[in-house]
């Protein structure tokens, strides 16, 4: 009688442990898929941050969810880190004008500040709008 009860308890404990192992596998697997634990190429394929920034600049009409824009911000940071130091301000100007860090909406006042920092002859709104148009390859 008591042996039967012990067996039942042991079986129940094993079942719970097994359920825990499966739950842990589920959580760990999902976390590995969504975070940067797996090699980047598993998630991104042949895409690179610079290519994604290039796409956003080439196709200004792209509509994307806020999460996608948030990821693009980190791509911009990665692309920025690959730029030469003397190109950074011009890169930032293009990024601000094309709204790559603001959901696709141009950041006019930031762009004006950057433009003045570059010492360009004209940084008024019509000039910035023209630069925005011209920055489309």
């Amino acid at each position, binding site marked *: 009688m008591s042996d039967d009860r012990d067996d039942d308890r042991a079986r129940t404990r094993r079942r719970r442990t*097994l359920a825990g*192992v*499966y739950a*842990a*596998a*589920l*959580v*760990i*697997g*999902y*976390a*590995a*898929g*969504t*975070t940067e634990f*797996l090699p980047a190429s*598993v*998630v*991104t*394929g*042949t*895409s*690179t941050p*610079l*290519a*994604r*920034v*290039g*796409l*956003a*600049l*080439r196709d200004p009409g*792209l509509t*994307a*969810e806020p*999460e*996608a824009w948030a*990821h693009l911000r980190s*791509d911009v940071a990665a*692309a920025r880190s690959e730029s030469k130091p*003397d*190109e950074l301000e*011009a*890169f930032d100007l*293009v990024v601000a*004008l*094309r709204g790559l860090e603001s959901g696709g909406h141009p950041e006019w006042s930031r762009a004006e500040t950057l*433009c003045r920092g*570059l*010492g*360009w*002859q*004209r940084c008024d709104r019509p*000039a910035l709008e*023209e*630069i925005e148009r*011209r*920055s*489309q*390859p």
Partner: protein
Amino acid sequence: MAPALRWFVGPLLVAAFAAGVGVFRARAERGPFLARTASLGEAERKALEAVPARSMANAVWAFGPVPAVSKAIQAELVRLGDSEGPVRARALLRLCLIDTSFDGQAALFNAACAADTSICDRMKEAGEREARVRFVAPGNRLSLMFAGGHPRGPDAVQPPGHP
């Protein structure tokens, strides 16, 4: 079920499935920026990777001062190498438009012509196209060289069918 299957293979399969779901979700979160670049061939990817530099060069060309323009174009030329003839020719034409010496302009135009032979006989047209998208001097007007034609050096590339 064998204990090895239940305790090791089963959890591994579950973890792999969950990782697949996680990867799918991570891709979906990145939206069209990843979806449209994830399976590009090398040439297409390289072309997209060149876009930021080209955007910068175009922006600088529109309103930037001469030193910034020269630096941006030279960086673009280094990046381009010998590929993409028309883009290279456009960059050289821009340098030609801001060059102050007649000889320098002629040499740069010859180099542009070598990079893209289609502009050799349409020098003025090609120059005007670039001058039109520059809004500050110098470079927003054609020099006399464009009106009178450029002197051809002995090694200048002749377009097909050119006498």
